[in-house]
């Protein structure tokens, strides 16, 4: 219980830092840092959503970026048709979805699409275990990647450029501050919901399945169904992160779905500490900062980053979160 409370405290601290940094940047006259911080925030959301699958569900998915991409393309395609003045969908019987730059609509479409494809691909992938599961999630993600590369109408390999950040009534999203705090609000909303989810009955069953699937079955729980629901919910959350990412950089690229992106998100989770929700947030922060800093010195920054990650995985098995918990005192 105490460990749980300390975890809460760490999460509050991290969120407080996220809330206080932007004004600080402005005081220092370093506004350009805000965009990096915003990206950390959004990747943190994506990584935390993967944590539901990886850390709580014990399912090692290497295809999470697909849902990020589906979210981003939902926003991108809606905006593209809005610029063009055409309809996204024009089906008979009045089923017409016009293009739109509304952020809320993009979020809604992204949640539905990512959730749906999560359910679809999950229902097949979750019939496998271990290495097979890793490979099949990766394969599905690559399928989406090549699908979007082949969509010439939506830019193919070049992706879609957005003009401005879309609309939300009452807010000017082109203001970086406002957009940042909107992202922070969504992240907090997600963390609150995810926290409830993981401590609920559902979450307990899920964690039981991570620990000992056979025993959970013997108790009579339909493990597959629990995992599938978790997988689809996490996919939907990644879809949200995708929309935020598209509008933040005003650009949607198929590279967002590439399996290396899935790997990057997974590294964030492992680096930060899986099964903690706040850990992946820290992981996203450290990874993106390192990338940024190392890239100043050398274009071969991966040569340094790679060994660093191996060291972390070897010597800090519970990631940054585990280290912080150790520093903060023993469990009891």
């Amino acid at each position, binding site marked *: 219980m105490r460990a749980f409370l300390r975890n809460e405290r760490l999460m509050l601290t991290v969120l407080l830092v996220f809330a206080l940094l932007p004004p600080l940047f402005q005081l220092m006259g370093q506004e350009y840092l805000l965009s990096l911080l915003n990206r950390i925030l959004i990747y943190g959301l994506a990584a935390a959503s993967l944590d539901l699958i990886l850390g709580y569900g014990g399912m090692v998915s290497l295809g999470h970026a697909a849902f990020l991409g589906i979210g981003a393309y939902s926003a991108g395609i809606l905006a593209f048709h809005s610029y063009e003045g055409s309809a996204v969908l024009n089906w008979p019987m009045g089923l017409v979805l016009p293009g739109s730059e509304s952020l809320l609509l993009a979020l809604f479409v992204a949640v539905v699409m990512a959730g749906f494809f999560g359910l679809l691909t999950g229902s097949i992938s979750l019939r496998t275990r271990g290495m097979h599961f890793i490979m099949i999630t990766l394969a599905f993600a690559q399928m989406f990647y090549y699908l979007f590369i082949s969509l010439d109408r939506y830019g193919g390999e070049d992706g879609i450029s957005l003009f401005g950040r879309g609309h939300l009534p009452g807010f000017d999203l082109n203001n970086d501050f406002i957009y940042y705090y909107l992202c922070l609000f969504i992240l907090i909303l997600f963390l609150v919901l995810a926290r409830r989810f993981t401590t*609920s*009955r*559902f979450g307990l069953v899920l964690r039981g399945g991570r*620990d000992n699937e056979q025993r959970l079955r013997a108790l009579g729980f339909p493990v597959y169904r629990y995992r599938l*629901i978790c997988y689809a919910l996490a996919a939907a959350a990644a879809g949200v992160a995708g929309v935020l990412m598209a509008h933040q950089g005003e650009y949607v690229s198929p590279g967002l779905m590439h399996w290396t992106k899935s790997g990057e998100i997974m590294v964030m989770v492992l680096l930060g500490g899986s099964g903690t929700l706040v850990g992946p947030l820290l992981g996203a922060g450290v990874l993106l900062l390192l990338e940024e800093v190392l890239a100043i010195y050398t274009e071969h920054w991966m040569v340094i980053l790679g060994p660093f990650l191996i060291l972390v995985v070897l010597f800090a098995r519970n990631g940054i979160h585990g280290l912080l918990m150790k520093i903060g005192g023993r469990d*009891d």
Partner: protein
Amino acid sequence: MIEPLLQVESLSKRFGALRAADEISLGVAEGELHALIGPNGAGKTTLLDLLCGLTEADCGSITFQGRSVGSMSMEARARLGLVRSFQVTSVFPTLTVEENLVLAVMAAQGGNFGCWSPPLDDVQLLQPARELLTRVDLIQKSALPAAALSHGERRQLEVGMVLATAPRMLLLDEPMAGLGPGGTVQLTRMIQGLKGSVTILLVEHDMPSVFTLADRITVLVRGRVAATGSPQEIRHDPAVQEAYLGRGDDA
């Protein structure tokens, strides 16, 4: 005399030429702790397999609560309340002891797709879980992760999770196996505490705990019942002493 909770009549099982169970008959009364002893290869585990439904008998009958269960599946027998606890302990290592039991209680109650309210705030779950923790002597350890428990304590937890399904009769397969002296004493005390509230058929090699716990003992030798009786009677039965206890293994 009242009809016993479990009645076995001329149960037989052959594996090739080996008669693993040879015309076994025995009755276990409600609330009784009945121990099953015998030298290695006497067919004790085979008998448990037959009783819980893991293997099917060649002939003979098994009656539980007045119903013939001989051809029922393991799950069906478990639903009737005839439950086996396996030698291999199987718990959820990173969950706390309390969460392990809450999960078992949830399984018994059903309706577990709730995504909002935490089960650890739910009195309906917590109260039975706490009661079970007390019954298996683990209430002091409830906040520890199961991985931090000793071998014997994990057995206790496992039994607690089995008890959550509210069995009428428990088939315990060598619970003391692999435990040190301290663990054996502790587990014996726990089983002692269960006596009366649940009928138990105990297969065990550890003679001191068998003679402490059992109301009645059945001795199996080469697939046959060599003797059945109170611990006193068994201790002094000449046939038993020769076949089994004669090795100086006397309690």
